[in-house]
């Protein structure tokens, strides 16, 4: 599926971005999810961090990665509170 997505059209690449709160920032959503998992009886969950995921299809260019970073930095992720990670398929 990954390959298929990467090859949607000539010159179009799929980029997967994940954004998560920085380690020191309290993650209220992650905590709520952990509670929910506990309540449902999922044992052995030590910690949950919740974040966002984006799948972006974009025109391929030599500066693709720089463009992805520019989109992440400040828009898809707020550098004050979030880290991002991306992967180009």
């Amino acid at each position, binding site marked *: 599926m990954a390959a298929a997505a990467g090859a949607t059209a000539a010159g179009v690449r799929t980029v997967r971005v994940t954004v998560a709160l920085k380690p020191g920032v309290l993650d209220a959503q992650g905590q709520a999810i952990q509670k*929910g998992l506990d*309540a*449902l*009886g999922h044992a052995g969950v030590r910690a949950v961090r919740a974040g966002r995921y984006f799948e972006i299809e974009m025109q391929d260019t030599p500066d693709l990665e720089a463009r992805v970073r520019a989109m992440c930095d400040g828009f898809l992720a707020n550098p004050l509170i979030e880290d991002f990670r991306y992967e180009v398929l």
Partner: protein
Amino acid sequence: MAAVGPALEGIAARPLGALRPDEYAEVCRRLRRDPTPAELGMFGVMWSEHCAYKHSRAALRRLPTRGPGVLRGPGENAGAVDAGDGWAAVFKMESHNHPSAVAPFHGAATGVGGIIRDVLAMGARPVALLDSLRFGPLDDPATAPQARGVIAGIAAYGNSIGVPTVGGELRCAPCYRANPLVNVACLGLVRADRIATSRAAGPGNAVVYLGARTGRDGMQGAAFASVELSGNPSDRSAVQMGDPFTGKLLIEATLEALATGAVVALQDMGAAGITCALSEMSARGGVGMDVDIRLVPRREDRMTPEEVLLSESQERMLLVVAAGREEEVLRVARRWELPAVVIGRVVADPVLSVRDGARTIVSLDPRHLTDAPAYAPAAMPPAYLDEVRRLDVSALPLHDPAHALLALLRGPGTRSARWVFRQYDHMIQTNTVVPPGADAAVLRLKDAPPSGVALAVDGNGRACYLDPCTGAMLAVLEAAQNLACAGAVPAAVTDCLNFASPERPDVFWTFTQAVDGIARACDALDVPVVGGNVSFYNEAGDAIYPTPVIAMLGRVADVRRRAASGWLGRGDVIVLFGDGTPALDGSEYLELIHGRVAGRLPTPDLPAVARTIRCVRDAVAEGLVVSAHDCAEGGIAVALAECCMPSRIGARVALPAAGRHDAVLFGEAIGRVVVSVRPDGITKLLEFARRFDVPVQVIGTVGGGRLVVGAADVSGASTSPDAAPWLDVPVGILAQAWDADGEVS
């Protein structure tokens, strides 16, 4: 016409409808030919129970729908009543039970969106929402996330679209575990002379699609809402996704389009999507339409015309726009960045033609779609009734009343609902004078000061299980009683009738009984039913209790004149209005403390209760009382405790002891309201009650930090409980039980 031959193979390959064989035959008879695949799909959804009310239509005729204030009764997208000063209040409730069962968040969210657009279709700006919820026990591991999801879905949609959720109710019982009920009511306001219609008119006028693009959302949702949930994963294509952001744009764009004066008729595309809008608008207008389905804006490639016809994508409206003025409406849509396209024209002949480009795929009289067959199902009292009505109260052990009271205050049906309503924006639009937490919400009418409206929603499934007719009456009376505490005159009822399969005679009997109960109570109160909704087939696993839910709208002459929901002044006198004899049969206490759902409900004395309601309402409206709160689940003890909560002031109360103390404290009877009054106002109030022929008793005094309740005859004094009271609990302890800072169970 370019009909496609006999379509039956197509159905077998990809079932599009839920027609029974005899219905299919009826379609062929009416068309004098086999339906095309597209037509068959349209009949499938339009003749579904959800759209066609096949089993309920006849019974619903029993409901009173007329009254001097009624501007639009049932039949349009929502009812409308006079709200004073030239304003009309548009009011409607709808269920989204099945979608919420499979996808709690999205199901509930789209339920909110759907009812908002029904009200919008009347040309009204939506100004308030109410939610009535039923779940399994909240401590059930599967129920808790479901309940949280539903509430979060309502919050997400209502908060974002900017319509306050000003009240609701939440009750729990095991029968709702697999069949949660999510009923949402919406109130809208429109100038009475600007109420819009769904009746298409004017051959040559444009048929305009406005709103979100069409995708494969909620395929066959209407049909889906009409069958029992099977646990089958193929149920699952029916999930609709809401987008409150687009919903908000659609409200503004629609109201702006209406303001141009170019819109002749409109309807939301809700259940059964564009199929329903095309057929109902044409049929109601006695005209036809000729549309090209290919012009419908789509979100996905390769959708078949049938899919477009049946899609239940959200946030869409269909407009009929005066010929030559299309651009005025399209311009509005562009400004709000919404797709809008002229997809066809109104035609004089009552023929609905749908083309896919040049190919005609539908050509029929739209009334064939809207006039579905009606059934007269068999009705028979359920076998369980005799059994559950048997209750020997004297065999029940007596419990410590303080413990019982605290347990009741913690109970899902009686605890504070703050944990729910603080997730809802209940203040936006800045009209909320009485927010959730009181018996009824009160909104001011900004454009008609000092008047306002009050809203309450009530239902009692347990009572309806024991006695559907009485239970339904209780729901109506309880709603009116709640409005009375806000000083409001009942103006309109909208209802949601939630039942199991009408094809079961025992279920159908409960349905007809409930309708009868609603009708009788509404007659007694002189309030019309202006609209509503029937949700059948709520029986995944167990059948639900018969659960009619009543939302009531009242008019408030002066929103500045109101009673508090609890004590305000130390030394104030506590008076009980009404003299119904409290019974443990069917009570919250009996279920929660004794684990029994049983008993024989006393038949309400409708004229007496109606008098009490009128008396309390007028006393509040004339400013004769400080506070007013009715006795509901948990009886007078819970009502008194709730009166202590808002200001954390206690009370000393003496009740006439007749029989067991638990019956006196926790027994339930309709038509009882606890009010407090300043000592210097008591004479006037008692005189006032006498004029209404309403029995009243002075039962105690406000003050102190404890709620003390005892027997009047033991103490000898009617307002001070005996040295050995039944109950003596610090208000702080009551409050902690009642609202332990909003955690779910």
